[in-house]
């Protein structure tokens, strides 16, 4: 276990990078996912089709392949950004599809009467979605959204293979440098991830029980 104490600096650096990658990608993916969900319930057939196609393509493609396209194909088009930004793009594009599906199922869980009432007092589609349906939908989808953020946190580990020095990359570097303490090094990394994921999981479970609305 000395290995962990000796390398706390490296762990901390990796932890902060993972946290930054997670926070930035979560916010962007949630925004994109909400737009996609609104598109999928909109009155415009073209938007519905585009939203559905996006979700269908992304959910059947591995995140690693998304990373490949961003990291290896974008430079072919003379788009050169830092590996961190590339990772944010790949993680955002991938998870937006899942945020979209969670928000959409939330919209579907809001009672029909709510939308009918909104329409009957003369609100337009955008108004009824923004003022009546989405606020209630977000309430029911908070736990699933947290769970997707947890999945996203874990998935940022793939950025390790694409030049971002986050927790997992720190782990492999330390494991290579300390061949006699590989397991201790990796246990340290696992603990760092569990520090992020376990409390969020408990929070999601608690909120799920508290926010449960009888419909």
């Amino acid at each position, binding site marked *: 276990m000395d290995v962990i104490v000796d390398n706390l600096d490296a762990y901390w650096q990796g932890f902060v990078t993972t946290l930054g990658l997670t926070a930035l990608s979560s916010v962007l993916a949630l925004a994109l996912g909400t737009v996609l969900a609104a598109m999928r*319930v909109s*009155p*415009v*057939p*073209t938007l519905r089709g585009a939203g559905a196609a996006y979700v*269908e393509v992304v*959910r*059947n*493609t*591995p*995140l*690693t*392949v998304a990373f*490949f*396209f961003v990291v*290896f*194909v974008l430079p*072919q*088009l*003379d788009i050169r950004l830092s590996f961190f930004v590339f990772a944010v793009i790949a993680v955002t594009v991938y998870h937006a599809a*899942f945020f979209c*599906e*969670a928000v959409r*199922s939330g*919209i*579907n869980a*809001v*009672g*029909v009467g*709510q*939308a*009918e009432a909104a*329409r009957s007092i003369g609100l337009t*589609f955008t108004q009824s*979605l923004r003022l009546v*349906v989405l606020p209630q939908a977000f309430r029911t989808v908070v736990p*699933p959204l947290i*769970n*997707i953020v*947890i*999945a996203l946190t*874990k*998935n*940022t*580990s*793939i950025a*390790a*293979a694409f030049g971002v020095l986050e927790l*997992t990359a720190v*782990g*492999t570097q330390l*494991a290579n440098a300390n*061949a006699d303490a*590989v*397991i201790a090094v*990796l246990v340290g990394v*696992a603990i760092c*991830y*569990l520090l992020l994921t376990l409390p969020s*999981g408990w929070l999601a479970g608690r909120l799920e029980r508290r926010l449960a609305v009888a419909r």
Partner: protein
Amino acid sequence: MSQAAVLYDAAGPRGRRRVLAGSAVGLLAIAAIAAVALGRMAAKGAFEADLWRLLTQSNVQRLLARGLAATLRAALVAMALSMAVGALLAIGRLSHRAWLARPAGAWVELFRGVPLLLLILFVFLGLPAVGVTVSTFWALVLGLTLYNGAVIGEIFRAGILSLPRGQTEAAYAIGLRRGQALRLVLLPQAVRLMLPALVSQLVTLLKDTSLGFVIGYAELLRSGRNAVEFLGGRYSIPIYTAIAVVYIAVNGSLSFLARWLDRRTRRRYGGAVEQSTADEAA
């Protein structure tokens, strides 16, 4: 609110015209962006025929086919092992004996809480460190099993818990013991409810085999990367596009099967266990 149509009225003639005009403008805008991107790609020679003709060469096709076979092999072995581990974990968590239920619960929380890639690295780097040699295939399969065993265990548990209480009570009433009730009454019914979620999880697992790329297992993605490294970076667009198409074709058909099973299960048995969106993403 199952029918989104409540949110808006059917468009009249003016609305339809506006939708049409808006769609046309939107499509034009997308076409303009695409034209710029494609122009840039064309300037780099991304559309030269010889680049894409590569995909018709039999040795490239053979390479990708071998990669796909390796991907499917890893996915199927990992799926079988994960279901075995998952069944044990579910039975353990449902047990009334605390010394079984607690560790099984802790196991599930622990292995669902860390990234799959880290588990694969644990097997790949950790086992050799204690003197056990492990091939890249088994490192990938065992890593996948550690993670998916926990996820599938939760699917099994949800399936058994979703059955009406009366089933357990009836089993006890005719004198079955707990193990017998589980084996003879609950499991056969639960399996039907879980099938759609299991197929969805197989899609996720299939996607995750692409992590074999990181440890150098020659699955579909690694094979493609090897080809690009051998042929040169300009071939990355056709090869990665082909790989993405293969993944989407295989996983798309499996997802379709899962949705069909889900509808059928709901129709016949009035309910089904769902794979959570979060499990699908991870």
